[in-house]
């Protein structure tokens, strides 16, 4: 075949995480701190409901936007956690993971050349999704001194006449940073004034260790311009079920549903039945997991303190983002040596954007025993590097 493949796709870089994965997968006995998914199994009562759905032969397509019962439960959940009312009939769509919602949400909003503002470091798929939709990604490099939160000044500076959407990814992967209500109010003011949309990716909303997570959609005049994205992967440890959702004004959901309808048809039926159970009876599981993550978070921060590794205190998701600039290496060099010399895998911060350079994403979705071993090794490594440097 001589005909060329899509230039647009060819130009997109594969994820930096992928590159690191190839390196790791050649090695044995690696302690990994590299995953972006919970270490818990999906709670049994939720799995059981999935099995029951299969036994009952519930193996057909659901409606494009998802099971009515599930959309109703999603609506109830957002009402009770954020006090926002979304109509299950036309303001909610069930998607294949939050990641599909990101894709179809951007596609439903942008015209060629529209600008999508993406604060980084952040999850790897916003930028490629914007590019695939012929939009122009505009990156805001978040600053360590703001604990990687987005400020209204940074946002104002990035907005042009072509700006269509701000992506708001908090609690954040990879930094663990959160935005509280005060922070969000300042952002909302700019968004309303400049009349743009927000895609608020709240997939880690349940993993917030300070106060309860606040959605920007709950602020006055914001629901009408927000696509709220969430899902089951992180809160209920359901990554492999591939189930997420988006809530937005019905005009937006209507367009998103068309893309979803032609590309996907509907989210997996078994997963949808299991998810109904998760939302109905899963609060205790979420609380238990949150408590456990919080203990590990404290453990890691204490370990960094003991080895004198600078790290701001992150209050969300299950990541910490320590700074490794003192060693005079790039994140990739540091991560590669850490892997080769101590067999610990952590993701270089620059995999999540240029502003992640000089940092390391460490996931605490691991057992305490595992984290203890990893911190021993990291401590030894850090000590060795400091000795090398002082010579």
């Amino acid at each position: 075949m001589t005909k060329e493949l899509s230039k647009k796709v060819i130009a997109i870089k594969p994820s930096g995480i992928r590159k690191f994965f190839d390196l790791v997968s050649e090695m044995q006995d690696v302690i990994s701190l590299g995953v972006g998914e919970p270490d818990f199994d999906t709670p049994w009562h939720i799995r059981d409901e999935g099995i029951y759905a299969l036994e009952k032969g519930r193996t057909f397509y659901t409606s494009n936007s998802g099971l009515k019962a599930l959309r109703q439960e999603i609506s109830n959940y957002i009402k009770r956690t954020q006090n926002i009312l979304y109509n299950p009939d036309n303001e909610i769509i069930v998607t294949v993971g939050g990641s599909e919602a990101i894709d179809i949400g951007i596609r439903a909003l942008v015209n060629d050349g529209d600008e999508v503002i993406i604060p980084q470091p952040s999850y790897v798929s916003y930028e490629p999704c914007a590019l695939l939709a012929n939009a122009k990604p505009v990156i805001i490099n978040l600053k360590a001194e703001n604990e990687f939160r987005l400020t209204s000044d940074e946002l104002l500076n990035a907005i042009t006449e072509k700006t269509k959407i701000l992506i708001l990814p908090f609690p954040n992967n990879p930094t663990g940073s959160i935005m509280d209500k005060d922070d969000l109010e300042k952002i909302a003011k700019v968004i309303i004034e400049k009349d743009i949309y927000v895609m608020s990716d709240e997939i880690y909303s349940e993993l917030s260790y300070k106060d309860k997570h606040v959605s920007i959609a709950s602020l006055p005049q914001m629901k009408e311009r927000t696509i709220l994205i969430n899902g089951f992967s992180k809160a209920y440890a359901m990554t492999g079920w591939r189930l997420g959702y988006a809530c937005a004004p019905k005009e937006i959901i209507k367009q998103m549903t068309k893309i979803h309808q032609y590309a996907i048809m509907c989210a997996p039926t078994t997963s949808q039945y299991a998810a109904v159970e998760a939302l109905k009876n899963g609060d205790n599981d979420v609380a238990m997991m949150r408590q456990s993550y919080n203990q590990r978070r404290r453990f890691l921060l204490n370990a960094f303190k003991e080895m004198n590794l600078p790290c701001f205190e992150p209050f969300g998701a299950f990541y910490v983002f320590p700074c490794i600039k003192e060693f005079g290496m790039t994140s990739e060099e540091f991560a590669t040596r850490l892997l080769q010399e101590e067999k610990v895998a952590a993701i270089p911060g620059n995999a999540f954007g240029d502003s992640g350079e000089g940092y390391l994403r460490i996931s605490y979705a691991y057992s305490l025993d595992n984290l203890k071993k990893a911190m021993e090794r990291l401590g030894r490594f850090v000590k060795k590097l400091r000795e090398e440097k002082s010579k």
Partner: protein
Amino acid sequence: MREELLTLIEKNSKIGLKELSVLLGVDEASVLQELEALEKEGVICGYHTLIDWEKTSIEKVTALIEVRVTPQRGQGFDSIAERIYNYPEVRAAYLISGGYDLLIILEEKSLREIANFVSDKLSTLDSVLSTATHFVLKKYKYHGTIISKKHDDEREIVTP
């Protein structure tokens, strides 16, 4: 902090003060104070170790015994229960609603010893009306811990 502390030491009684203080985000003195209070109040009744005896060469036989008894005036079931649970081989004793009254969990070195306990000690008590003995064939889960299964991490090593 109390509930979180109890949950932690219920899973791991070996956990040290320093680690508890880190995990709970409070200073060591407060953790110690709370632990002492819990012991004094009798909330913490002991610090045990979970052992899978089947992996050792030491023989252990476990039996669950349903006991029907006549409650005594003024005492209810408590005094007969006490007569039974005072035997050291009785590992657990519960008052149960439903078809029988007491559930006794017995651990012995052999079937014969359990049979002896039931016939010589338990059945001969005046207020015991009848017993039904069930032998444990296999322990799957005990004290919230799944005994046999070692859970490997099947996740990919690196994911976004």
